[in-house]
């Protein structure tokens, strides 16, 4: 009986490693550097973490579906550039909507290309989305001629961007409220709708899902479209925060998003995972970055740490399945 309890405890500990990690990180850092839990620091963190949660949210669906999406780099860059440059001709609402819409279209295009050529294994998907990313980045470079677009230069009002970038309601940033609404919608979509559940089915076993009569290709297009829309939203939040858009602003978010998803405990093999877990992963990654900043580690050392965490997380995830 006692052994049973301890076994159950170890199992639940293993399954919730990310929570343990977050708590340990908070406790240890708070002891070494009390500034960590000051409200000024936490507000700062909440303001600086965008667009990562959006990208990680979109990436979660792709990974649960058993695929991977490296094209977020190009999608963020191109969506951001388009949203920033359309403020003048379309007004700010039009600019934001067209950025998000463009993201969705690019995501759909990814899904369309992948299903048309019948890419099924992770390797093929990885390289095709990388190629698509190059294409999007190149288009963004051609549109901007590699110059930085500043939203402050636009002649039309851009107060929604400012609100998203630095506005707060009480202590809470506006963009966080927007994100939480989207998070709840996506969580319900994943848990309660047929389309959401079939993503999980597809990730668990594509052959079985196909033989059961599910339209695997449609699910595949769906997950990539979701990833594209989220990249579009992420791009808007990024542009709002830094008030500029460049054709290379998306670089690095693909590995960071994958890192958050994997650290959260969503399996790269597909089928298992949840939106909430990814958010815990984002929290851990962001807090880790913040704590390394406070402890005075260089950004280069942080890259090393991120890479190490990614490798170890995948390794542990794999061991859990053995």
């Amino acid at each position, binding site marked *: 009986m006692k052994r049973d309890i301890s076994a159950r405890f170890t199992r639940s500990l293993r399954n919730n490693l990310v929570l343990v990690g977050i708590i340990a990180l908070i406790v240890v850092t708070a002891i070494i550097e009390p500034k960590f839990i000051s409200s000024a620091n936490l507000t700062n963190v909440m303001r600086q973490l965008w667009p990562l949660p959006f990208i990680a949210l979109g990436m979660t669906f792709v990974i649960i579906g058993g695929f991977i999406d490296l094209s977020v780099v190009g999608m963020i860059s191109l969506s951001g550039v388009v949203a920033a440059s359309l403020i003048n001709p379309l007004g700010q609402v039009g600019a934001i909507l067209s950025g998000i819409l463009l993201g969705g279209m690019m995501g759909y295009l990814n899904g369309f290309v992948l299903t*048309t*050529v*019948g890419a099924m294994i992770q390797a093929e998907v990885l390289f095709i989305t*990388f*190629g698509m990313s190059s*294409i999007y980045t*190149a288009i963004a470079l051609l549109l901007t001629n590699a110059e930085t677009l500043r939203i402050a230069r636009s002649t039309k009002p851009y107060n929604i961007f400012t609100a998203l970038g630095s506005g707060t309601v009480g202590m809470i940033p506006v963009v966080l409220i927007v994100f939480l609404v989207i998070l709840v919608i996506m969580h319900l979509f994943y848990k309660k709708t047929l389309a959401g559940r079939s993503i999980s089915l597809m990730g668990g076993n594509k052959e079985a899902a196909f033989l059961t009569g599910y339209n695997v290709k449609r699910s595949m297009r769906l997950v990539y479209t979701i990833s594209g829309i989220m990249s579009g939203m992420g791009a808007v939040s990024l542009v709002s925060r830094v008030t500029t858009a460049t054709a290379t602003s998306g670089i690095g978010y693909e590995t960071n998003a994958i890192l958050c998803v994997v650290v959260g405990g969503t399996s790269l093999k597909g089928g298992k995972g949840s939106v909430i877990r990814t958010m815990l992963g984002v929290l851990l990654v962001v807090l880790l970055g913040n704590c390394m900043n406070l402890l005075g580690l260089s950004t280069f050392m942080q890259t090393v740490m991120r*890479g190490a965490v990614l*490798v170890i997380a995948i*390794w542990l995830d794999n061991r859990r399945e053995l």
Partner: protein
Amino acid sequence: MNIKIASQRVWGTISKQGAVLAILVLMIMMLFFKTNFYTAYNWLDMLRSAAILEIVAFGVTVAVICGGCDLSVGGTLSFGGIAAILLINIGFPIWLAIIIAVLGGAFVGFINGFLVVHQKTEPFIITLGMGMLLKGVCQVLTDAHPLPSKVPAFMEISNSKFFASIPSLVVYMVILFAAFHYLMRYTSFGRNCYAIGGNYEVAEYSGIKVIPTKWAAFIISGATAALAGVLLASRMNTGSSVYGDNTGMLVNCGVVIGGTSFAGGVGGIRESFIGLFVIQILINCMSMLGLDSYYQKLFEGILIVTIIGLDCFFRMRKRESV
């Protein structure tokens, strides 16, 4: 009827020799422009420019034929060059520094092999994370600045010429090409690699020591990438953490473009050589025609999506016809 058979044959040829077809298209296209494309000087120059990536590709091919994949070569490439220059600058003899750098690359390959072969993780994301980690290590080592070598003799390695006209890098590439071709074609190690990539379980039951062989493939891949990094550092006379930024994806794409499949068991060093050379010819054509680098990125993306997409498409057709 005849048309159907003929079209099938044409499709078959394209599916097998997509890279050769791409080279032919580019070469025919260049006939219509008045450029220096068809000069011995240009072709030697293309070979020299391609040499570094070709050498990395030879090692990666071994891992891919085994059914693996190595995206960490970019990080290993930067690391090899930086390690060699650091050691030479503190007074090590050049040959010893190169050997230590290559051993460092082999050690990276050893860790990759441990994670992928021994622990059976999916190679794609884990080597991507490894590349990120190594990039961080390189940044820490150099403080993200280019690191010049203080010993002029080191520069001679890659910048000298044989017979007054042939660049030494081309000679190294040819030697390594011959060595790897021999290794994969005519030794039991090479044949075992094909067997493992073709069907892991069958190879295991036939008595091939699958784990040491595949592990060795990753070590070879890491060591070769570090060697290429040393040659690149010698060519530039500096080591830098940004050299390998695109190498991992580009080389693996080139290997697949050549016809070595990620499913494992098919392909070869010759095919990889052609695959990487397609990319080089494309870049050369672009600059000959005076297109700027944004278009190069665009066409690179289109090339990757098209050729890997065609590869998937024909494999899907084959699967469905069986």
